[in-house]
């Protein structure tokens, strides 16, 4: 019966058959759980009694720049997706440029977030809200930093010619992480910027 197994098989880290791809899927699951527990902590503390105006501290945070930043982060995912499709068609330049743009937009997001942090009228240890704000957005920023480093490494490796239309598992694995980091921001953004407008506040 073993003879029927004699067939052409791809060799090595090939597309979604690479072990690393599967490992990244479950890494994303566990990272997503981490954010679920972070946001659970937010909502759990949000519904406890608070003095008026302390949850969110100083009223709902301004939504304008955060919305712009959300758009920037989502655009970075588009750029990375464009790069991924490029290498599947063996277009190395598209890969390098797309990943580079993704890393650049990610860095802009980080810079804007940094200014947002400085703009807050409270510090880390003022109230439970302020602790939640800095820790949860901080967790997300740490993930963006890791994501940008991954994109930079992939850009460099792409420029060195490591990938082509057969070998691009690294790209898809790194990109999966990046798309996750972008997607989870939407949950964070909704929690911090939208739910107070919907009435979840003290």
């Amino acid at each position: 019966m073993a003879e029927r197994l004699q067939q052409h098989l791809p060799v090595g880290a090939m597309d979604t058959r690479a072990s690393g791809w599967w490992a990244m899927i479950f890494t994303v699951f566990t990272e997503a759980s981490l954010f679920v527990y972070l946001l659970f902590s937010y909502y759990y503390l949000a519904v406890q009694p608070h003095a008026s105006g302390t949850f969110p501290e100083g009223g709902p945070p301004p939504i304008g720049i955060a919305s712009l930043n959300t758009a920037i982060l989502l655009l970075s995912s588009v750029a990375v997706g464009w790069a991924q499709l490029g290498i599947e068609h063996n277009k190395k330049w598209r890969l390098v440029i797309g990943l580079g743009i993704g890393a650049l937009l990610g860095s802009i997001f980080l810079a804007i977030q940094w200014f947002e942090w400085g703009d807050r009228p409270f510090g880390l240890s003022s109230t439970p809200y302020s602790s939640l704000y800095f820790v949860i957005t901080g967790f997300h920023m740490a993930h963006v930093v890791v994501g940008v480093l991954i994109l930079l490494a992939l850009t460099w490796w792409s420029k060195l010619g490591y990938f082509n239309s057969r070998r691009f598992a690294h790209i898809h694995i790194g990109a999966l992480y990046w798309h996750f980091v972008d997607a989870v921001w939407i949950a964070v953004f909704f929690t911090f910027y939208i739910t107070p407008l919907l009435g979840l506040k003290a």
Partner: protein
Amino acid sequence: MASTDYERRPTVDTETPDLAERLKRLWETAPGLYGWLATVDHKEIGLRYIITAFVFLILGGIEALVFRLQLSWSNLHILTPEQYDQLFTVHGMTMIFLYAGPVLSGFSNYLWPMLLGARDMALPRLNALSYWIYLFAGIVLYSGFAVGFGPNVGWFNYVPLAARAYNDGPNIDVYALGMVLLGISTTVGSINFIVTFLRMRCPGMSINRVPILVWGTVTASAANIFAIPAVSLAFLLLWMDRNVGTHFFDATAGGSAMLWQHLFWMFGHPWVYAIVLPAMGMVSDGLPVFCRRPLVGYSVVALATVATMVLGFGVWVHHMFATGLPGVSLSFFSAASIIIALPSAVGVFAWLATIWTGRPVFTTAFLFFASFILLFTIGGVSGYMTGSVPVDWQLTDTYFVVAHLHYVLIGINVFPVVGAAYFWFPKFFGRLMDERLGRWNFWTMFAGFNIGFFPMHISGLLGMPRRIYTYGDGMGWNWVNLITTIGSFLFAVGVLLFVWNVVKSLRNGAAAGENPWDAPTLEWATSSPPPPYNFAVIPTVASRHPLWEDRLGRADPQRSVVGHGLVLAQGREALGTTPLDAEPNVILKMPADTLVPVCLALAMTVLTGGLILVNWLVATLGIVLIAIAIGAWLWPSATLGETAEVSRDG
């Protein structure tokens, strides 16, 4: 048709000594210190896991003996209250986090690729990383205790007692960050098991043919990746509350002490199942071998395993019945806790039916497996009792709960693990363990365990609270505690007999041969101990019991084949198969020995140390080292088939 390096048509052949020799050169770990630090062989890593976990079991046991002496009669002062607090906390931490989980990871690490007909785990370097982090986290967790600052508020570490205001030393910081580090080990280990389950089963091993141990471990692993982040986060937030002034758990500043309990038990209860389901899997696979028949109800046992875990995510509040939660919440979680008895009972009846309808052979391993059924039932019934809210209100925080959790953890983890050691020892080392000494070992442990722990039900019903360092003479708890202490020492003698048997059998146990128990699964089709590559050619499987097919008289003309199959020997190679049907779909290039995992684990330990000392310089150094190690790990490698073939594509 010429093949490129992107694809190949592997040959099918019969195992030859020449091929075996070639594979041995490819897969063997280098000798000496380098090989010891750099190995990625799942068998080496698995044994290390088991041995390290047993060292922790013995440490935790000694701690327990010391405080059992303190409790053996009223008004004793062998220990101070502070020493007592540290001892019982470190005992819990050791047994639950450093023994019970890792020992099962060890067995599964060693056995999985053998059971699945694979060359190694899917991610061998991650496997090495998982072990090293476990070892270093264990050392970190013990470092505080070693210098007199062990965790001292119980293994579930409730705030506000664990907050800075009431606990000013480094005790809790070491515990908190050590646990975060250990969580990384468990997480990457779990990811490795899941990917291995989905991708590394040999051709023909569809998911309805994998051994139950594999079901148990993959179910536990899936639970871990969802549950571990809760406790890691809780400990990290606590560390921040204690060191950088956040207010998550500080009720005086608007935080909530209950948030700690929720996050801890959202992890804690699934974890209980994570440290018993693989052990139940060991019994489901080992017990039938000694009953000379397949397990009764394979499919329902596999489904019950998964169902237990799913329900296990919905019962965490039963640890919090006495905290003043609303009645509707109590009702819901009480119902869920009681319903979970159903899938548990499926297992019990399946094992009983297997013995009943089989022809039992009373080996030591059988005795351990069979006694587990009894102990599990007792632990299950006491759990069922405390699942009921009014009963729990009477019994929570008494010795009744201590009795329950020890019947569960020792009954469902230690007894199956010792049975598994008797069962698989011949495969690990090529020698049988002494059966005569084994009987002494079993009966001493069994008697000691029940004499030690059964009376705790009674002291609990008499109202004795847990975690008190001594008690008054008039409470009427003297004799029951003395019996408990005597039992615990007898149990310790039983564990010593086990260690003695291991040492004795390693030296002069009888030679085992390939399959001393005449067992049905693939690990018994290799030599004992197995060669570094496990299988010279990839086996093909046609049933759940590849080595029993002739006698089971299957009508199906297809037979499992070991020793004739796909030859993968152009470098370290393994076969990747589809997740459900296990059809081959890729030839995987497997990594060679490397120092990167141990370096990465060290770098993570540096970061942990920096944060414990609140030294930002050391912490930053740790982060930089981590980045370098990960960069080295992930740099695309031509030998692993991760880069474009430059010579062909220009």
